[in-house]
């Protein structure tokens, strides 16, 4: 059993390494797309300047021009960096999955009962959400940020939250551990991807509005427009919000079984409620005149900050009934 646990830890490190490589490759890809784009822009200007197709259609006519000259350099649709990034992300995700399974084997239970395991599984869900949607729709521009956050989370988990694999106390011995915590982790992973989309939306929006600080960030031109990013973020958030609602309901049912009350304003319950209300406010803000767009995106940022605090701050700073970090706050 010890071997399984050790192998699991090694695989998490390996996965973090693979994802770090993916992060670099995604960043290179994003930068190189920027060059391509800048080229296209220059070309379009030149075309317009020499009296090519003038008027509003000038831009539209430009893209076919480079096709003939540059097409042989790169296989259609895939850059080299993007290819490396995607395959290392798949590899890292697969290794993380094996690490999670081995962890469960070593502990002899569901592998999401403490902070380290929560970090591991939450990162996995974020990666899967990213990869799954990417199969249907090109989301590679999100890659650098999703893998970046995941690497950060994994290394933090390994260094700060790590506890050895073992059983759990009686309060956690319930099938609700699988359901309630499993859904909470899934929601957290999905909120992570939505958060990345909203941050990009805000950056892109500010750059489009001519924010001087972002003038040098050309790579932002390579991400979709603010409206698309908003729609993308909303789709993830809608799924996350429904899952979070279920997390709270499932938690209440479990609390009723284990503690004899379904709601008791325990710090974790308070912050789960705060998160729920913030994301509910986000859904309302989206449809309120004067609050949609940029302001609504800030709700996502605040909501995700609450998600992170609910996971770290509430576990480590407050004493409550959800003291399952496996870490001793006294030390």
């Amino acid at each position, binding site marked *: 059993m010890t071997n399984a646990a050790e192998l699991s830890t090694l695989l998490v490190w390996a996965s973090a390494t693979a994802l770090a490589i993916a992060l670099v490759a995604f960043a290179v890809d994003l930068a190189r797309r920027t060059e391509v784009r800048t080229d296209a822009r220059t070309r379009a200007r030149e075309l317009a300047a020499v009296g090519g197709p003038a008027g509003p259609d000038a831009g539209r*006519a430009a893209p076919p021009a480079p096709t003939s000259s540059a*097409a042989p350099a790169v296989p259609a649709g895939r850059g080299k960096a993007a290819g490396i990034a995607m395959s290392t992300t798949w590899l890292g995700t697969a290794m993380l999955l094996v690490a999670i399974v081995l962890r469960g084997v070593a502990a002899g239970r569901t592998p999401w009962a403490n902070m380290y395991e929560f970090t591991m599984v939450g990162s996995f869900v974020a990666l899967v959400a990213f990869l799954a949607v990417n199969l249907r729709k090109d989301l590679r521009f999100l890659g650098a940020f999703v893998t970046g956050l995941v690497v950060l989370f994994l290394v933090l988990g390994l260094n700060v939250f790590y506890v050895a694999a073992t059983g759990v106390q009686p309060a956690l011995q319930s099938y609700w551990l699988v359901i309630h915590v499993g859904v909470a982790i899934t929601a957290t992973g999905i909120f992570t991807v939505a958060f990345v989309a909203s941050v990009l939306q805000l950056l892109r929006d500010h750059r489009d509005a001519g924010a001087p600080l972002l003038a040098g960030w050309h790579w932002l031109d390579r991400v979709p427009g603010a409206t698309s990013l908003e729609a993308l973020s909303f789709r993830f958030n809608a799924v996350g919000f429904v899952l979070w609602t*279920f997390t709270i309901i499932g938690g209440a049912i479990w609390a009723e079984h284990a503690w004899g009350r379904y709601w008791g304003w325990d*710090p974790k319950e308070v*912050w789960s409620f705060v998160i729920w209300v913030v994301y509910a406010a986000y859904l309302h803000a989206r449809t*309120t005149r004067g609050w*949609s767009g940029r302001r609504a995106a800030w709700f996502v940022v605040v909501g995700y900050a609450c998600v992170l605090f609910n996971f770290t701050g509430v576990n480590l700073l407050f004493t409550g009934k959800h003291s399952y970090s496996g870490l001793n706050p006294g030390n």
Partner: protein
Amino acid sequence: MSETPRTQRETEARRPYRPEGIDDAFAAPERPAHGDETHGDETHGDATHGAAGDGARTGEQPGPSLPTLGWRGMLRWTWRQLTSMRVALLLLMLLAVAAVPGSILPQRSQDAGKVIEYLGDHPTTGEWLDRLGFFDVYTSPWFSAIYLLLMVSLVGCIVPRTVAHARNLRGRPPRTPARFGRFPATAAGTTTASPDDVAAAVAAHLRRGRTFRVDVGGEEPRAARGRGPRAVPARPATRTVAAERGYLRETGNLVFHLALLGLIVVVALGQLFHYRGQAIVTEGRGFANAVVDYDTFDKGAWFRPSELSPFSLTLDDFSSQFASDTVAFAQARDFTAHVTVTEPDGAASKETIKVNHPLTIDGAKVYLQGNGFAPEITVHDAQGQVAFEGRVPFLPEDSMYTSRGVVKVPDVSSGLEQIGLVGYFLPTAVVDDDGNARSVFPQPTDPLLVLEVYRGNLGLDEGVPQNVYRLDTASLTPSVGDDGERVKVLVRPGETVDLPDGLGTITVGQEVPRYVALDLRYDPSLAWVLTFALLALAGLAVSLFTPRRRVWLRAWEDEGRTVVELAGLARGDDAGLQGEVDRALAAVPGLSPDTIPDATPDATAEAVPDPVPDAGTADSTKGQEASR
């Protein structure tokens, strides 16, 4: 997602930066001339309320006329403000912020002891915080005010919306708009089939699966009118199809909000009817379900003692298991209480109670909330009389079950003082060289009692109820040794030891009985709370994931063939809208193969904000790469 590159680019290009909540996207760019009122209402607010308020306010006179409103006008204005989306949003934000202090400051409902401790540590700020209700945040007037206002706001908006939706459910799809050009999804084609056949085929296609409500109609021939770019050419008589789906979206939205209201109401009712009793029971003993048998008993305002079902419960045995591996040494692994329940009719049954498995008896649930050791202690006084005899529960203070307890010995023989014993029960004791004892494992492998002895007036004769777990030693005389240190009496089970200062002897029974803290709770609202919570979840999922779409078709004869145009409109952003329109076009019989979807004359992008091609859409990224 059957999304085409074109769709996204167009939605991007057509709309200004305004994410498509129902707010604007569902408002037809060209409202049908007959002005469907219900839909006018729907142009505000999506997954949320506020529609009524917002809608009403737009028709209202602006602010400056405020002073002349009069009190009725003022009331109406207040009501509209309260039920507006903006105020609902504000209240939601306030609710989130107001909930936070309850997680930072200790709360009376959870740990009254911590509140007292806090008040002791922060006398000035603590007093002010207390006055403002910061130690009872969730029952404080300000917290209650926020959620009650939110409830009123919700009612004020959900009720009119429910009425509107009920009317809308019986309504028909809105008439086909005159121009399709500015809709987010369009398609067009030509066919050899007649307009009648086209309309019939597409209507049949849309009716399949009963998702769409479909109307087939027609329009009179139209003469050319207008000039310049907005000119409308002449057109013969047409056949039209108007279809709408996704009424469930609003239904789900309303169900969600109504279920939230129901949830709050049943939670409040549960508070009124509930009762909760806590009892400490030692092995071999039991208790009856009666108010007097509980150590503490809470009840709602509408609770009647006659509701207590008169069963009784005996603890036969309690077993515990702890991890002995190094990784999680002494971590609890299992607690099981074996009990015998005697029903009111005399039938007895053996049951077990575990931490995640409460026992249900006559609708009440019995939870295992704690456990510990209750050694049998007998104290003989200086004259040899039995002054105290009984099981004393010691409360565990750490994971090794270092447990604290108090023995209050009355003065049974005249002329003697009362004796107070305070100290610890250590299940597996290790005594250091300097005489300090501590517990190293939670199981009773080598139990030891370490007690300090006090004498004086404990107040046992004054008839004032006392906390049995606390001894106020301030006015008592401790027994001290020659070195001035307090004497520590060490007793092991089965031993009898002399108390210092000739106060008598203490005997601890050979067997150390376990005790369990049981929590009995009855709340008739539980099933209803769950029902409303699940209803809310279902309503939420339906309202967020049901696409609401309208599809229109117009077909007319032109130069021997039939021209077909389609348009689609969705509420909220809807990636599948263009696919829906394309599938409807594909249902047209005899469609000409050279048909290009979306070839409608005025479907071209009206505004391309960025001169650079395909400004940054995900799909165009692929195009860019391919072009290198």
